[in-house]
Structure formats: structure tokens, C-alpha cells
């Protein structure tokens, strides 16, 4: 097991290097002179040249990458032009809010998706099954930001039950924090709930057809035990894959949902940075979020082996 984990961690290194290369190249795909683009049309040639020097843009590309990656490895993602402060500090300040939103959305997605999928599978071809599947199909077709806007309209504007936006850390005020989190997490998690429900249903249906389930039933085991213990455990592998992927999608999707709910996470920072052409922030956020995504996928891979001993470590 230990060797397996070490091998998987080592396997991540090339992916992380390539993620870094893609993030680094972001500034270099800007058409024209990146320094001139960043400073805008009002900048003088001297200012542009100074920024080129500061960013090391006059150096050969491989030298630029070496310098950039050396700084990144020391936790230095450069400075934000507009905030006038280190990107690392700005990102780490907002990371907890974004992670909290993604985790809450994932919680909703699993809480709704897995039971809905199980019920649909057990009651295959019934009205409940069709209802779940139609809802899931609609769920994967609705943009999260549109769900968010409608939630605000219903629960904030009309019913006045929940705040239309903002963020309160749960450690500061748990109830207010939850009230701020509820709508963005639901809006963000709904599509993933639909995907998880679809995957759970098909995975459960496949397992429920297996001989060992028939044996378990013929032994007289209660249906809850057959479904909950025997079937679900084996059906969990593909479901876990979807859940693992979902976390990354949610971290990315948070960019848009945070904008709807004025939620002060990395997403809103990125959107503001796009409007201001503050590339170090965009580059840093891309690298940070993707690295987290890669690490979460590694954890999911390791979880597989714990859940399903049939998966061999080699």
C-alpha cells in the first residue's frame, strides 16, 4: 500500500510540471507585447520597458520559466498589479471561502445525488425512477449561475428568507455563515447532484443484477442490508470517480457562482483580475486550483483501494 501511494505521488510530478508549464505559458499567448497589454493604452514606452524588465520578458523563454518556477516552488506567485500585494497572500486569504463553497456544494450533490440514484435503481422503471431521471436530466442542462439567479429571486427578493450574497466565516457566526452558504452551494452542487444520481443509478443497476446479490436475497437478508451493504459498496467505485471529478469541477464552477452571490472567494478575484488584466492573479489561481484538483484526484485513487480490495496496487 505504501509503495502504491509513493508510486502514485511520483506519477503526479510530470502532471504537476505540465500544469505549471501551461500556467506559465498563459502570459506568453497574449497577442503582442504582454507588458503593453497589461499596462493598457495609457502607458509610456518607458513604463512598458520597465515592466518587461520586472517580468523578465526580455530573457529567453526557458530562463523565464526557470526563474518563475523557482519562485513558485518557494510559494511566490508574484505581485498583483492592481492590489499591489503578493498574489499568494491574496489567494490564500480567499482559498478557505472557495474550498468551503466547493465542499458544501459537494455535500449537497452527494446528499441529493446518491440517495436519488439508489432509489431510482431499486424502483427501476417506476414513476419515481422516471421522475428522478427527468430531474437529473434537467439538472445537467441548467447553468449553475441561472439557478443561482432564480434562487436569489425566490428566496431573497420575494420570500426574504436568505441573504442574496456575502460570506460569513462559519467560525465567526455558524448560523449566518450557513445562511450565506446555502444558496450558492445548492446552485453550484445541483448539476453535480444530477450527474451523481445518474451514475449511482446505472452503477447500482449493474451491481443489483449480479449473482451474489441474488444469493444475498435468497439467504433471506433484509433488502436494506442487500442494497446498503452488499450492493452499494461495490457500486461505489464509479460513483467515487464522479465525486472526485466533481470536486474539481466545483472548484472551477465556483468562479461563476461566486460572481452571482458576491461571494468573496478566489472566483471573484479571478473575474476581477480578468477585467483588469491582472495576469499574475489569473496565473496563480489557475496553478493553485489545478494543483488542488490533481491532489484530490490522487486521494480519490487511494480511496478506491481502501474501498475495493480487488484493485491491485500495481
Amino acid at each position, binding site marked *: 500500500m505504501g509503495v502504491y501511494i509513493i508510486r502514485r505521488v511520483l506519477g503526479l510530478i510530470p502532471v504537476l510540471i505540465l500544469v505549471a508549464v501551461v500556467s506559465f505559458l498563459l502570459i506568453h499567448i497574449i497577442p503582442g507585447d504582454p507588458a503593453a497589454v497589461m499596462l493598457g493604452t495609457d502607458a509610456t514606452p518607458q513604463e512598458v520597458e520597465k515592466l518587461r524588465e520586472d517580468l523578465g520578458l526580455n530573457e529567453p523563454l526557458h530562463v523565464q520559466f526557470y526563474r518563475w518556477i523557482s519562485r513558485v516552488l518557494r510559494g511566490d506567485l508574484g505581485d498583483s498589479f492592481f492590489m499591489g500585494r503578493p498574489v499568494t497572500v491574496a489567494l490564500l486569504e480567499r482559498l478557505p471561502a472557495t474550498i468551503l463553497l466547493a465542499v458544501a456544494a459537494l455535500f449537497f450533490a452527494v446528499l441529493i445525488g446518491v440517495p436519488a440514484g439508489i432509489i431510482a435503481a431499486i424502483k427501476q422503471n417506476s414513476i419515481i425512477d422516471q421522475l428522478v431521471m427527468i430531474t437529473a*436530466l434537467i439538472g445537467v442542462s441548467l447553468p449553475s*449561475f441561472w439557478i443561482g439567479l432564480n434562487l436569489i429571486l425566490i428566496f431573497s427578493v420575494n420570500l426574504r428568507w436568505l441573504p442574496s450574497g456575502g460570506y460569513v466565516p462559519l467560525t465567526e457566526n455558524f448560523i449566518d455563515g450557513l445562511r450565506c452558504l446555502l444558496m450558492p452551494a445548492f446552485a453550484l452542487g445541483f448539476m453535480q447532484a444530477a450527474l451523481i444520481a445518474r451514475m449511482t443509478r446505472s452503477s447500482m443497476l449493474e451491481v443489483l443484477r449480479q449473482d451474489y446479490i441474488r444469493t444475498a436475497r435468497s439467504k433471506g437478508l433484509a433488502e436494506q442490508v442487500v442494497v446498503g451493504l452488499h450492493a452499494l459498496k461495490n457500486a461505489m467505485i464509479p460513483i467515487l470517480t464522479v465525486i472526485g471529478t466533481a470536486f474539481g*469541477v466545483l472548484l472551477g464552477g465556483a*468562479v*461563476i457562482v461566486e460572481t452571482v452571490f458576491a461571494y468573496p472567494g478566489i472566483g471573484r478575484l*479571478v473575474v476581477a483580475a*480578468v477585467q483588469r488584466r491582472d495576469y499574475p492573479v489569473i496565473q496563480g489561481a489557475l496553478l493553485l486550483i489545478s494543483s488542488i*484538483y490533481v491532489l484530490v484526484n490522487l486521494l480519490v485513487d487511494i480511496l478506491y483501494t481502501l474501498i475495493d480490495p480487488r484493485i491491485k496496487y500495481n
Partner: protein
Amino acid sequence: MPTQSHSTVDAEKADGLSSPRRDFFRRLLDSRLAVLGLALTGLMVMIAILAPVLAPYDPLAINITHRLQGPSWEHPFGTDNFGRDLFSRVLLGARLSLKVGVYVVVFTSLFGTLIGLIAGYYPRLDNVVMRVMDSLMAFPAILLAIAIMAALGPSEFNVVIALGIVYIPRTSRVVRGSVLALKERDFIEAARGAGARDGRILFLHILPNCLSPLIVQATFIFAYAILAEAGLSFVGAGPPPPTPSWGNILSEGRSYMRVAPWITLFPGLAIAITVLGLNLAGDGLRDVLDPRLR
């Protein structure tokens, strides 16, 4: 070389024996949801094509005296904060959203297929090429698209490039998977034995057999692209206004949501119906063309 006589073919038709193509259409039409999906998609494509004819008003014409009017006979979807007819804007929005979707599908299918064919067929290149694809998939799709748009600048063409780069790895993985399975098959061995060159084997023998999963994948990428384009436009990283796209109509309407909720309602519904149609069609095509993916 023995040839099949016309009478034999006619007899087959008369007996109801089917060709793979006829079999495909029969199975597709048997699925009510797939038919519904294809019908919805067809309807949206028709709306997009005919939008300039169907739109009752100029979607860019400002009429301040009619601003923020609710749905009526005169303006079925109401008007926005500039008094522009929302029905016309949503119709024209279909044009841009679907155009981006189609271009993204073409872009990803071309490059994704080429990369998948090469990676699957040449083991030496497989590792390098697929690691690059894996690293692109390590980025959350919408975040990578926003970052690329920030670098390239907002334009319709750049949206296609950004979403193309984001979705190419998905297509290439699907094609590569098919190539890996196909290249071990006897008919490929036979072609190789008969002296066929790699190019001929790849494009004449392997590619046609990869089309089923490719078509299914393309349908879903069409749906993702429409959602992603709307998301990009919503955060201001899509094609720039005033060209109406569903995403930027939604984005502009957001500020007036309390007084004019119809501005966000109708473009959202348009996105939902189009993506639902594509998802239904994709599910149906997958069930018929590639049951392994079910």
C-alpha cells in the same frame, strides 16, 4: 469478385432485413427521449438559422420609452433596460451560442481525433501526448477557459479557441481508447499484412470505426460548449456586447432582476432547452451507437 444482384437487395428490403444504417435509425427513433432531444436540437438550430427573419425587432435598437416592460403581445419576452426587444435578442442569441457550439465541436473533433489517432496508434508517442492531455484535464474546464480568454482577449473566435483547447483532451481520450482496441483486431492486421501504410490504416480502416463514440462525445461537447460560452459571457469573458449572446443578456439582466426578472428568465430557459435537447440526443445516440458507454 461476386456481386450482389439488385434482386437480392430488393428481396432483403422486402423481407425487412435491414442495413446497419436503417437499423441505426430504427433504434434511434424507437427511443422517445432521443427523438425529443433531436427535435429540440433541430428546433433550436432552425431558430438560430432563421433568427434574422423571425426577430420582430432589431435586437440592437434602443427605445428608452419602452424600457423594462414586462412580457406582452407587442414584446413576448418583454424589454431590457435599453428598451430592446428581448424576444429578438434571445433569437439572435441562439445564433451566436449555437455557432460557438458548432465551431467548438468541429475544432475539438478535428484536433482531438488527430491527437487520439496518433497517441493510440504510436506507442512511443502515446505517453508524451496523453500526459499533455492529462495535464490539460487537470484544470477545471471553465477556469482554464476564462484564463485563456483573459490572455487572448474577448472575441467570438477566441471563445472557440479557448473552449476547443479545454475540450480537445476529452475527444482525444475517447478516440485513443477506440484506436487501442481496434489496432489489435484482425482486419487491421490483415490491412498491415497487405502492405497498407500507417496513414491508410489510420484514416481508412481505424477512423471510420471510431466514429460512433466520436459522434456521442461531440454531442455532449456541443452541450458543454453552450453552457461554457454562457458562463464565460456571464462573467464578461465571452464575446463582447452588443452582439447578443444568451450569457451576456443574462449578465446584463442581472442588475435589473428585482424589477425585470424576465430579462434573466428567457435566455436561461433558452440555454436549458438547448442543452437538454443535446443531452437527450447524446444519451439516445450513445445507447444506439455505443452501448458500452451506457
